[in-house]
């Protein structure tokens, strides 16, 4: 799985300026929405970004979709810097990287027939005949579990789950290498979510497509993703293969997040790590480890002052950014601390 690297994100930062004044605009500060993150996505691989509201997940997605310019760092697709793409390469990027968003009600144009919504990515750039387009659309509709007979209908004639199928179909039609999925099931009813999750897994195999999956639900991440990056205040604090992360979470924030997740059975009693306070503002993030003001395990200056970077834990593919794992420190006992 994921032997060939498809997407590489290297030390990317995205700072949004905070401005003041109408006539004489002055920058008075910066929102550090994404602050020096690095990860890779392999071919046919799913990477999940998990973390709470405002930690920078959507900004990361928008950077990959060329909707934002990074303040620093580079993003490579097949080894090529995506911000340096020109002409045909730039246009082809739009075929190769597609997206599906959370809300199937607002993301589909209500005045356009489903046939044309699905066909949109191949209408502009591809020199295909009308018949070819028609055939492609009908095949895709079948692949995403819709009846091609309904291709002439409008989005409002479909339920939420069906609309999300339409969105997946449209994202697939240009044979992309990567699809960014921003909370693709969280707006759907519980009995519909499994349909869409299974569909996404099935078309991934069929089309050999990679996913960047943004979710806040950890159970969904475990079901869908091969690798997971846990974000907090614009940084990746822990990054590992899915099963490794769930079996052996090491970052205190990851542990707190896991302990806060709802159990799937009333007999599951988890150690409750209740964090106090709320996530600080990304405008003036804490020094040192961004989590230190709320961390139940912090150890003085290492956590409060020193900037932590992702470090590979005992030569596994398990990365963590935490003062407890700082250079030169003996590695703490893993397993549940406290």
């Amino acid at each position, binding site marked *: 799985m994921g032997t060939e690297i498809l997407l590489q994100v290297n030390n990317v930062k995205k700072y949004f300026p905070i401005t003041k004044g109408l006539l004489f605009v002055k920058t008075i500060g910066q929102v550090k929405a994404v602050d020096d993150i690095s990860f890779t996505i392999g071919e046919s691989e799913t990477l999940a970004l998990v973390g709470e509201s405002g930690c920078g997940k959507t900004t990361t997605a928008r950077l990959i979709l060329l909707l934002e310019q990074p303040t620093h760092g580079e993003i490579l697709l097949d080894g090529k810097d995506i911000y340096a793409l020109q002409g045909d390469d730039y246009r082809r990027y739009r075929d190769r990287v597609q997206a599906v968003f959370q809300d199937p009600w607002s993301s589909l144009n209500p005045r356009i027939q489903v046939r044309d919504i699905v066909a949109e990515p191949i209408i502009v750039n591809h020199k295909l005949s009308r018949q070819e387009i028609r055939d492609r659309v009908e095949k895709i509709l079948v692949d995403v579990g819709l009846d091609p007979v309904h291709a002439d209908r409008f989005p409002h004639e479909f339920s939420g789950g069906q609309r999300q199928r339409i969105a997946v179909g449209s994202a697939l039609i240009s044979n992309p290498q990567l699809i960014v999925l921003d909370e693709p099931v969280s707006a759907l009813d519980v009995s519909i979510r499994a*349909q869409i999750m299974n569909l996404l897994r099935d078309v991934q195999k069929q089309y050999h497509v990679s996913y960047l999956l943004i979710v806040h*639900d950890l159970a969904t991440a475990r079901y869908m993703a091969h690798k997971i990056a846990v974000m907090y205040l614009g940084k990746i604090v822990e990054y590992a293969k899915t099963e490794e992360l769930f079996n052996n979470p090491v970052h205190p924030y990851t542990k707190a997040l896991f302990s*806060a997740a709802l*159990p799937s059975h*009333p007999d599951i009693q988890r150690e409750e790590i*209740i964090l106090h306070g709320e996530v600080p503002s990304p405008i003036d993030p804490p020094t040192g480890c961004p989590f230190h003001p709320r961390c139940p395990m912090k150890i003085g200056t290492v956590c409060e002052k020193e900037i932590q970077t992702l470090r590979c834990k005992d030569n596994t593919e398990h990365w963590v950014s935490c003062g407890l794992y700082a250079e030169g420190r003996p590695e703490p006992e893993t397993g549940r601390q406290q």
Partner: protein
Amino acid sequence: MSNEPTLRKNTTQRANGNVILDVKDLRTYLFTKKAVVKAVDGVSFFLRKGETFGIVGESGSGKSTTALSLLRMEPKPAGRIVGGEIWFYGENILDKNEKEMRKIRGSRISMILQDPQTSLNPVFTIGNQVSEAFTVQEGRKNNQGTLLQRVIDLLRKVNIAAPERRFSDYPHQMSGGMKQRVVGAISISCAPDIVIADEPTSALDLTIQAQYLRLLREIQQTTGISIIFITHDFGIVAKMCDRVAIMYAGKIVEHGPVRAIFNHPLHPYTHALISSVPRMEARVERLFSIPGQLPAPGEMPAGCRFAPRCMYADDRCHKEYPPTFGGLSEHTEHTTDCWRLEDPTWEPKSYSR
């Protein structure tokens, strides 16, 4: 159709001890231009003192309409309670007039809504709104000094740090989690018997949700209030509830102690739904996925509402709504509305996971 559960194995008798709310065959219909939406269509359940009762269901299943009906706040002008009884400490809420209802709302049964934005008034300070809650219920007999102190104590009780300072904040100066705690404070300000919480945490982040759920539990332990928790999330049910009712298209299809439902779900819908939710604690090979979609309001199937999606449906299921079978899985209080339970040994097939 009779209202009493049909017997399956044991005698169904529910221990009447401490039942403070007893809802029988409640029907709330919405008379819209297009159709009559039977949002709540013959719902029965009860609530004991000090317990947490969950109502879980997908969107449009009628959870909020049920909750609002308990307070006689069914959506106007379309909504009307057309049948049933709601017994609260021996009196039928449906017999009360508006003046008597105003006394019950807020002071004996209060409600926390999903979106704290809509429950807090943006133009008044937090302190203002919490003290207003006290004065509405108790009249203006309080002297200002003790009132202020009580408001501050209450805000502290719901974990608002530095309440003396937060007191004069406006809602927009607070985070979502903080606002929801203020709403929680208002809802318990009058020491009610019942708090109805309609998806109070679905807009909150995980760690903030965990703080809030713990707070609700602590309040319950110290005050002994009963909570009706409305949610679409089985995780909330597993964590918070003693008993649970599963709603589908205006009906309670299954009802029972939480462990009985999780260990031994008998309604095909409950069973399939629990099998279709991914788990955080274990790797799941393949989720079961329920085919089809929820019935549109106003286009209810004639028989069992779940029949068009049910793998066990037969002809009768499509034509006739099933009776309520009780005394299931050794729990006298476990009931299910499904024809298959006529056969006392029937169980849904387990899905490979």
